[in-house]
């Protein structure tokens, strides 16, 4: 039911075509089957437009234009239907094409190769050779309803290095056509009386061999109501049925689409992971945002570290699609603790610290998530917790909040050797007070690998290990 592209998703080229198509028709809402027929016919009209010679793709940021249904006729003349698509990259003028793959800092890894995204605009040619008949005005008078919506088409196609413009034309037109079919299906499914939700397109990067996959969901219908649709898709794509892959929050962020909220995502990904003899690396699974001191115009320097770690964990739940609730503020966290009876009302607005038990309580109350608590009486004992921590990252994959003594941190992973017992901890430090500068954060170790000596060897520590809910 969806388009899949089976390829290494982090290399190669994606062609992404976007553009609006207008859907307009007159409906008699008293006759439901009539309505469906008219809507279907109008979608069919759009499909024939996309397959017609009037359909045009314009390559953004370049003078290149091609007609996919006209033997891939193109302008400028140097482009023909046999031109390999990757040549389009040479025609595109961008100021900063090298935004991913910058020069590396001390501990940064080099990416193997880039994923290029070529953006195309979907347009329609309104002109054609005449002479043709002059226009006719048709007036129809009947008390009825009028459907008018703008379909935001968004197709992404992964192409290989020897695909030509002609190949790409076929792939893109097929994808657009398919997407219109999906939109029609979704529209008809969710048509109720005289309301019709707008079909919206989401892209997901699914585990191999699925790759980049596109799904249409009706706008305004919550994820919770779309479980049946997701269940079908999980089955089709052989996805496990206990974790979300296709909720709206799981939508893929193309490499050239910055997150607009300003937080860094997964800063640990640029690090080179330590190699221990016989050691294996176990990491957080999925996407989290880095929350730390002084963000959001909140001066919590000196007291807010556990709150920030909790925010990082909440961001993980949100971006994996487990919850729809946005990351809570300090006040909301404090209010939650008052609401569960853990703190007095005067707690709200104070600068009091919290620990792992409070983190567990808030995760439960605000997100409905359970957590396990692990206790170590001495920091030196953490060195021997390799197996448990590895197991957590394997089975749950969520960030861990660790609090002890006077500090709180977030553990994002471990490198652990079963044979030698050597261990390293991947730490995300909420005490950072600077700007969202990935270079600084990784170079200075605010996100970095630490040895067991990092912990206060005599202090006791509590760890909060959030459990991922079983749902899709």
């Amino acid at each position, binding site marked *: 039911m969806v388009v899949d592209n089976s390829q290494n998703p982090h290399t190669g080229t994606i062609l992404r075509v976007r553009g609006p198509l207008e859907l307009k*028709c007159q409906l008699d809402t008293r006759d439901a089957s009539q309505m469906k027929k008219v809507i279907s*016919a109008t979608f069919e*009209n759009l499909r024939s437009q996309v397959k017609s010679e009037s359909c045009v793709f314009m390559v953004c940021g370049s003078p290149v*234009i091609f007609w996919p249904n006209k033997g891939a006729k193109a302008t400028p003349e140097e482009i023909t239907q046999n031109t390999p698509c990757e040549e389009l990259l040479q025609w595109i003028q961008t100021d900063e094409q090298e935004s991913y793959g910058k020069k590396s800092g001390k501990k940064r890894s080099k990416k193997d190769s880039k994923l290029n995204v070529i953006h195309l605009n979907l347009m329609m040619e309104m002109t054609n050779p005449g*002479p*043709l008949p002059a226009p*006719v005005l048709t007036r*129809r008078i*009947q008390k009825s309803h009028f459907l008018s919506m703008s379909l935001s088409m968004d197709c992404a196609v992964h192409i290989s290095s020897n695909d030509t413009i002609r190949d790409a034309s076929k792939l893109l037109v097929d994808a657009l056509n398919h997407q219109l079919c999906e939109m029609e299906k979704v529209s008809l499914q969710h048509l109720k009386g005289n309301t019709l939700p707008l079909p919206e397109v989401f892209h997901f990067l699914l585990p191999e061999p699925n790759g980049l996959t596109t799904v249409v969901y009706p706008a305004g219908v919550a994820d919770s109501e779309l479980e049946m649709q997701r269940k079908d898709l999980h089955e089709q794509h052989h996805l496990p049925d206990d974790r979300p892959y296709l909720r709206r929050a799981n939508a893929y962020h193309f490499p050239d689409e910055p997150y607009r909220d300003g937080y860094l995502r997964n800063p640990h990904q640029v690090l080179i992971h330590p190699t221990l003899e016989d050691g294996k690396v176990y990491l957080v699974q999925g996407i989290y945002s880095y929350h730390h001191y002084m963000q959001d115009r909140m001066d919590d320097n000196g007291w807010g570290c556990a709150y920030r770690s909790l925010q990082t964990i909440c961001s993980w739940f949100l971006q994996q699609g487990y919850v729809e609730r946005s990351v809570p503020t300090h006040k909301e966290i404090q209010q939650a603790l008052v609401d569960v009876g853990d703190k007095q009302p005067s707690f709200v607005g104070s600068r009091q610290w919290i620990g792992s038990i409070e983190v567990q309580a808030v995760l439960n109350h605000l997100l409905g998530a359970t957590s396990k608590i692990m206790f170590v009486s001495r920091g030196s004992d953490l060195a021997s917790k390799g197996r448990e921590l590895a197991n957590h990252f394997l089975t749950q994959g969520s960030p861990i909040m660790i609090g002890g003594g006077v500090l709180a941190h977030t553990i994002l992973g471990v490198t652990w050797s079963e044979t030698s017992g050597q261990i390293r901890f991947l730490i995300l430090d909420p005490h950072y007070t600077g700007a969202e500068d990935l270079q600084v954060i990784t170079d200075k170790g605010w996100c970095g690998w630490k040895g067991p000596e990092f912990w206060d060897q005599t202090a006791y520590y509590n760890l909060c290990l959030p459990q991922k809910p079983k749902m899709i």
Partner: protein
Amino acid sequence: MGRGYLVEDAVEKYLSELCTQHAVPVTGLLIGQSSTQRDFVIMATRTPQREESPSKQETSPDKEWVTEHARQVSRMLPGGLSVLGVFIITENDGKDTQTALRQLVFAVENLISSERLWSPADDDVTDCVTLHINPKTRKTVCRTFDVKDPKCMAKPADWKYQSGVCSSWSMLSCCLNVDMLVPLPDNRAVTEDMETCLKDGLKIWADKICSGVCLIDGKKLPEDTELTTGQKRNMRQIFTTQLLITQNEQRSTKDVIQSCGGSVSVRGTVHARAYLHNNKPRAKLAEKLLKRDVVSTVATRVQMLLEELLTSEVESKSKDEQLCLPRRVFCLLKGAGSLCVCDYQFNDEGPGEVTDRLKEMLDIDAAEEDLDTRQELNAEMVAHVVETGWKNCVFISNGCIIFLSQL
């Protein structure tokens, strides 16, 4: 530093004849193209005689009549040609002539611009010209007014006759599909409602056209490209154009389905054309003028149809009707190189009616053979019934559907 008007020789001849033939003051319009560097006047046309003219010795021109004439003439000018100003031939050298000219030129410009569906561009020339010729002394006074500023003073301008002003102009043209569907409000749906809805729909459609991408001879050219370069500079050039549109429309409501009392659609093809002066025209100007012609030609025809309906309003008994918009017909201007004017011919009109209008409005003597009717075909009601088992449904050839309660 005033403006400089280069005027085709034929215009001098025409104005001269007007000086000798008429006893009363004669008013009329000056037609051509303004550019930032220079202004070109390619023809002049006198205000037609009013049938119920009360007295022969009218001292002040009839403002309403002149502006109505200007409005009609505007419709007959393809892209690139427009009413640049007003002339008056009178022996009265007094101040009231200048005042009259000033009033006329502002009124004309206000009326014409109020009907426009496109927004003015920053690089549009907003000066209009007034010309006063004294038939006895042949003294010519030429002045311009900035119509953007109602309080502006007249500025002197150069008026220079020359031959070959109209030669080697370039022409861009295209045939464009029009496909609009707008809902009618949920009440009696009389013609006035249809007019408002159509105007709103046209405005949205015009925005789409104006923000579209224009290809000239198959290429997207940078704005500053000179269109006529190299050896072809002194030859007339014809460019084919293509227009690519994004279908995006702004919506005021989130509701996707709204109640309505019906719908109106306009579907068919129009031939649009724009002329460019011969002094190094650039791609930006070409695109602007062509797009404006696309918008005007559709808007004009819809307006003409609505005017017909309003004047002959027999509230139609049938629930649904199809009306043909007039087709565009061109006529070469004598003594003006290859420039053409145009007119709109309804299906039930013969070529004689077109030539009559050309004579009345533009003072052109054209024979039926001079009319170029090859650019557009007559509108046809091309509905045919398709057996789909759907009741009361009709498929129109390009895929749209309308409902007819009775076939």
